């Protein structure tokens, strides 16, 4: 694990030959802009691990004679944590990177001497780590031989809580710093911001977030957006035009629903859905989503935050601005770890 982390430090270094190779590879496969790749490698790759975090990471996995890893077309840097978890489970690791978007997996495998296979065949007793949609994980689990210990790492989303009494512009700048990395395609990426208070406060926050995303987006442009995603953004925008207010930037959208009956999941392309709520609304609004929430970001303590964390107790709590920088203490997604 420590070798993997040391390697990450080289990948983060733009002057290191490996760092150059990583930038070249991610520019070709990740769909992020050049600046987005740079941000991912320099700010969101785990280049250090504390003793406590290493102990947590080791405790988070079951050891096995062999560990096989099926990687998804995940955000580019995610392979590092996936491989670190596999190495914590076993000294004999085989990975199958995504063909479409292998991210850093090929470089990490080569430099760490990890086997790469086109087909994963897990035997009884093996650990099998699967990354992908819940449906993919269920398929792999169903097809696995008896005795294979399958661990799924599914998809999810982050939710931001803007607590009462905090400075809205500051909170908006911090949230923008969580939305921009990976163009919001990470399972910790915030898709919805719940503003404690009334519709006016939510509107003020939406305007501040729009401004913050404009500023940060100018420095880190969004990568290419495919047609299907553009279509999803168009339909989301049309729905928001009907229920509230749309703040459309050149490379982002903030949608305000001032009187939410239910939450709307916006497309993952720097699109943030903003609603007002009080703690008493949390069960109605957040309850149905609780099982999908991987992290709850917040701008400070408050009744709404307490209610959100009570609904999603396995979600990682994080400060706004730090939602995409979880310590390397286990899987980013901790749902189900307690089971």
């Amino acid at each position: 694990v420590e070798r993997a982390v040391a390697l990450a430090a080289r990948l983060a270094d733009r002057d290191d030959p490996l760092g150059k190779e990583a930038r070249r590879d991610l520019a070709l496969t990740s769909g992020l802009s050049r600046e987005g790749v740079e941000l991912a490698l320099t700010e969101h790759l785990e280049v250090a691990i504390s003793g406590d975090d290493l102990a947590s990471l080791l405790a988070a996995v079951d050891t096995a004679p062999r560990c096989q890893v099926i990687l998804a077309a995940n955000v580019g840097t995610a392979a590092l944590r996936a491989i670190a978890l596999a190495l914590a489970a076993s000294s004999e690791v085989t990975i199958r990177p995504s063909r479409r978007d292998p991210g850093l997996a090929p470089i990490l495998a080569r430099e760490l001497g990890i086997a790469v296979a086109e087909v994963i065949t897990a035997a009884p007793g093996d650990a099998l780590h699967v990354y992908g949609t819940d449906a993919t994980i269920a398929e792999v689990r169903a097809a696995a031989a008896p005795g294979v210990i399958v661990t799924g790492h599914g998809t999810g989303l982050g939710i931001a809580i803007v607590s009462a009494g905090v400075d809205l512009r500051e909170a908006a700048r911090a949230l923008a710093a969580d939305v921009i990395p990976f163009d919001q395609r990470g399972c910790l990426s915030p898709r919805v911001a719940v503003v404690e208070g009334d519709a006016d406060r939510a509107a003020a926050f939406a305007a501040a977030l729009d401004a913050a995303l404009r500023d940060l987006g100018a420095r880190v442009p969004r990568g290419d957006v495919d047609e299907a995603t553009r279509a999803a953004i168009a339909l989301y925008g049309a729905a928001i035009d009907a229920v509230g207010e749309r703040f459309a930037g050149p490379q982002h959208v903030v949608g305000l629903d001032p009187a939410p009956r239910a939450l709307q999941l916006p497309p993952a392309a720097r699109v943030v859905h903003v609603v007002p709520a009080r703690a008493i609304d949390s069960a109605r609004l957040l309850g149905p989503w609780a099982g999908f929430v991987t992290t709850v970001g917040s701008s400070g303590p408050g009744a709404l935050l307490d209610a959100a964390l009570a609904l999603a107790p396995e979600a990682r709590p994080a400060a706004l601005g730090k939602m995409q920088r979880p310590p390397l203490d286990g899987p980013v997604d901790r749902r189900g770890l307690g089971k």
Partner: protein
Amino acid sequence: VNSFSSLDSDALHARVQAFLRAAIVDPARTPEGFDAIAVALARHQAAHIPAVARLARARGIDLATATRAAEVPAVPCDVFRLTRVAAHPAGDDVAVFRTSGTSQGREARGEHALRTTATYELGARLWAERLLWPDTTRLRAIVLASPLAEQPDSSLGFMLDRFATLLGGGSFHLRSGALDAAGVAAAAAAARDADEPALVLATSFALVHLLDAQSGLDLRLPRGSRVMQTGGFKGRSREVAPDELRAAVSSAFAVPGAQVIGEYGMTELSSQLYETTLAAALGKWPANEARHGVYAAPPWVRVTAVDPITLAALPDGEIGIARLVDLANVDSAVAIQTADRVRVLPGSTGNHSIELLGRAPGAPPRGCSIAVDDMLGPP
């Protein structure tokens, strides 16, 4: 938003019903034009439904001067989930139809509230008489769906209940979510014994469950029988390709493939579209315009394919997502924007027919951020 007047609403329902009755006979001889009614409905809706008014403002549309249905802003289906889309107060609801249950719970389901079902029922009956039973009403309804009492908020359940009533009762074979395959076989046997044709009204997933359970059951139906299937699978059964399902249904019920027809409808609409192969086989529709996968809209519905990114109308024949103007949506939203991919086909009947090409694909999964479809699973 102005105070709601039930008299104004009643007057609009009367205008629409007069249009429906005339259009089903001859779409060219209606008491007033499609566009005039569509615009009148849009003004009524914008006056009482904040979502419609906001959408018009956001599009820069002045409904006071609008003259064409194409100018009416289309309300995306998602809006029915996010806010109430009804001109009348909730206290006047006589029915609230909800979209299918999902893992997101009741609050996350779209709602279509009606203050009267009369216009809905008239439109459903007139179009079914044209495309489901244009030759006879002597049909036994065998319904592979839950009775209305078990699903009072299902628009499909409401429609099937009314169809069964129109045909003299019928039998329902899905109870508490479980399909009674033996009951279907018994109903088929009774139809054979009486030599009375049957109309099977079924959801696609119920048909799959029936086919999976039919071993040893005789489901053959008498000559003249037909099957209407609707809806997707939504995780409630294994997925079966349309051609494969139709062939299996045709074989199991001993009904010609042309007489197994699909319905296209949705909670947010009040009207339905059907495949026309049955009507064509009976000589009631141009044979050269009838094929599976093509659905005909009634003359009170206009379908336009729009560009999925700009939402601007596309010429007939091009593929886009469906924008439907449904005059039977009197107190909700007369124009609806779906995410269903369609090609609008010109036809000699004057009706809009669409080739249904499936739901617009969501954004391809990249990264581990969850997709909408992954969250809206079955309950």
